């Protein structure tokens, strides 16, 4: 869901609005400033991100195209909380550093070319841009270790980078951090056809892994719209969820081991391939979801699932959100083990996709308020089909579903998925957008969209869509989320976008421990600085 309108709170509010999920801090009021207080000023600056003032990134200077009537808004609040300064303790790049890197990596893999750097410095959404002057392309773990050992000794900040498809500005430099891109480390190391355990380097592209596994009759336990570009190392580092989470669970469960390099160049070999291994603290979990701030993941060992041939997909229309929720419950109950995806999008999202993408049509003939994608994966073609049909027909009779279609072949199924997966792409084309991913208790999920619509009226186009099956809806208001016991980042991570917002979802004690762990593993703070955890803990 995107709020085309971005709003910010003042720093003061951020500090005082810390809410833990379990208790409210007694010494602070739970302030709920009116929505209108957060409308930020927008200036239409044309199509591309021109500003070099990183500090202003939170003010959404990048607008893309105009949004019709929305061009200027009155500014009410300031956004001082978002200002981050370059840490003066970090060194600046010197020629001797570049020479050293060329020595260990070879000239070809030390990139100073401006065009290539521009791409590497800019995130996928074109919202964030750093000013790094150097990108390194290591070919193996040993090289990553040498790079980090050197950078640590020189106090050079670095940004680990994979496919650069992140949505929270976590994969691009904030200032001049050296970019370490693992794209060359893209080999599959081993695959066990009995257990389904795949061991590969972190730079493998998710879609390539899926294609490789397909020939063996297996599937990756995760799938996302960015699969053509994202790396498995990045997926693991951000604990990516995606479309199949409802069926296969999260990476914390499916990743059996990993190899990571810490800030001082130490190689941590935690690359187990065993399903069961209770020997000591399971440290890999620290790295899964740490967004590159505790170490660079170089190898991954992941449990893959046998491919099941019978896949069915239905595109359903529902009148209201309550029906969607009931449908979810009934689907889990009736489809049980064969349910593999349950996605939802609202009318605004559908309109957006129809307007901005080519060759896309609404599978359901009438326009409805909500659309649901239900996918089943099983081994019995006819049996699964009948089960899905019976379930949907019953739902139709009960009035839970107002209309729907079932894909008759893979092409039709792909076109249904294109609609859901294409929302992010359509958003980018539509112009200025603020994309949030939040998770909330299922019953609360759509209330926030309606809430926002009520308050913003004509000013913004608010839409909701997401992995309803996991309780995720993108995007939302942090405060609303926090008040309703949700997470401000269900899947995309905190990155730079939400680094200071962690208190909306985690208690101060928890965050303090996170900071201690970070300082233990990365005393100089060179790994992906200014991200994940609040800036105040690390400013000198």
């Amino acid at each position, binding site marked *: 869901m995107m709020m085309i309108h971005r709003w910010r709170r003042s720093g003061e509010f951020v500090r005082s609005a810390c809410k833990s999920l379990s208790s409210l801090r007694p010494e602070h009021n739970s302030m709920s400033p009116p929505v209108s207080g957060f409308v930020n000023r927008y200036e239409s600056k044309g199509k591309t991100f021109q500003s070099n003032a990183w500090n202003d990134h939170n003010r959404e200077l990048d607008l893309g195209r105009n949004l019709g009537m929305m061009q200027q808004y009155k500014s009410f609040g300031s956004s001082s909380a978002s200002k981050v300064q370059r840490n003066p303790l970090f060194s600046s790049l010197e020629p001797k550093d570049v020479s050293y890197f060329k020595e260990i990596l070879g000239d070809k893999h030390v990139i100073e070319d401006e065009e290539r750097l521009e791409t590497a410095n800019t995130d996928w959404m074109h919202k964030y841009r750093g000013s790094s002057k150097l990108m390194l392309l290591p070919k193996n773990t040993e090289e990553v270790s040498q790079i980090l050992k050197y950078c640590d000794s020189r106090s050079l900040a670095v940004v680990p980078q994979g496919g650069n498809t992140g949505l929270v500005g976590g994969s691009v430099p904030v200032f001049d951090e050296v970019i370490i891109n693992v794209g060359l480390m893209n080999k599959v190391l081993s695959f066990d056809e009995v257990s389904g355990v795949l061991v590969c380097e972190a730079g493998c592209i998710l879609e390539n892994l899926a294609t490789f596994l*397909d020939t063996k009759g297996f599937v990756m336990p995760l799938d996302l719209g960015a699969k053509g570009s994202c790396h498995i190392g990045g997926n693991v580092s951000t604990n990516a969820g995606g479309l199949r989470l409802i069926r296969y669970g999260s990476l914390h469960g499916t990743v059996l081991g990993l190899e990571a390099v810490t800030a001082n160049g130490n190689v941590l070999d935690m690359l187990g391939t065993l399903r069961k291994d209770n020997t000591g603290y399971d440290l890999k979990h620290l790295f899964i979801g740490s967004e590159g701030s505790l170490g660079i993941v170089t190898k991954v060992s992941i449990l893959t699932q046998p491919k099941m*041939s*019978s*896949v069915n997909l239905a*595109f*359903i229309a529902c009148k209201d959100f309550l029906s969607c929720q009931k449908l979810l419950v009934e689907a889990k109950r009736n489809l049980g083990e064969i349910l593999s995806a349950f996605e939802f999008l609202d009318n605004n999202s559908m309109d957006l996709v129809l307007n901005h993408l080519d060759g896309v049509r609404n*599978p*359901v*003939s009438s326009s409805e308020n909500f659309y649901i994608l239900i996918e089943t994966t099983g081994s019995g*073609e*006819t049996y699964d*089909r009948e089960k899905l*049909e019976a379930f*949907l*027909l019953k739902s*139709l009779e009960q009035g839970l*579903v107002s*209309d*729907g*279609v*079932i*894909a*008759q*072949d*893979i*092409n*039709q199924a*792909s076109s249904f998925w294109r609609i859901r997966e294409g929302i992010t792409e359509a958003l980018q084309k539509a112009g200025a957008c603020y994309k949030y991913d939040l998770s909330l208790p299922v019953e609360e999920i759509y209330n926030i969209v309606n809430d926002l619509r009520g308050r913003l009226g004509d000013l913004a186009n608010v839409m909701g869509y997401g992995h309803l099956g996991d309780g995720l809806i993108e995007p939302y208001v942090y405060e609303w989320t926090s008040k309703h016991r949700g997470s401000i980042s269900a899947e995309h991570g905190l990155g730079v976008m939400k680094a200071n917002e962690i208190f909306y979802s985690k208690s101060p004690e928890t965050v303090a421990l996170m900071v201690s762990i970070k300082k233990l593993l990365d005393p100089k703070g060179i790994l992906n600085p200014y991200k994940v955890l609040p800036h105040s803990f690390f400013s000198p």
Partner: protein
Amino acid sequence: MKILVAVKRVVDYAVKIRVKPDKTGVDTQNVKMSMNPFCEIALEEALRIKEAGFAKEVVAVSIGPSQCVDTLRTGLAMGADRGIHVEASYSFLPLTIAKILKSLADVENPGLIFLGKQAIDDDCNQTGQMVAALLGWPQATFASKVVLDKDKQSATVDREVDEGLETLSVDLPAVITTDLRLNQPRYATLPNIMKAKSKPIKKMTLEDLKVDIKSDIEIVEVTEPPKRKSGVIVSSVDELIYKLKNEAHVV
């Protein structure tokens, strides 16, 4: 008028096929099967003609093993009125199919027979033409546009040919085979899937139709096409000329 539409159950268009190790054919075990895309287009056209008021009934027919009933159900879910399943234990070649369809046409007396221009598994592109010949009916193949004239009992069909578009006028009854650009098939909606459950599918055997299935053609072997060899980088123009002359034999 009644329209007869022949639909074939084939390996789904999007599947990456593999040849069986014994080279007798393509591996269809645990592989997604769907209605041939061109047959979908044929059925869609028949349904549109019926909705325009030119026909009273659309009958879908499929020839093959029992799983063909799934394909017929898809056809019924799209909107066909009834289905006919002709039981056959293995895949027949076009001439046999054409003979079966001719027998059916003698029984059902349709005003139009629609088929896809070819099946994506064998790419024969023969069945429609053979049916027309056996029946002695006119044929319009590779149709990209069909316009019916009720009074004159004829159809004007635009055909996609190598040189462009050719427009034919055929008297009914006729055989029309459909090409890609004719229409975009509709999805099977839930209400229609529900209605389809009560539509009849009649089972017929080859004995009922009195068709001789002996074929003069035998499939000897099925192999994959030779794998593309990777290119070679030459180090100089002289080496290129040498290779073109002595290895590729093109100069």
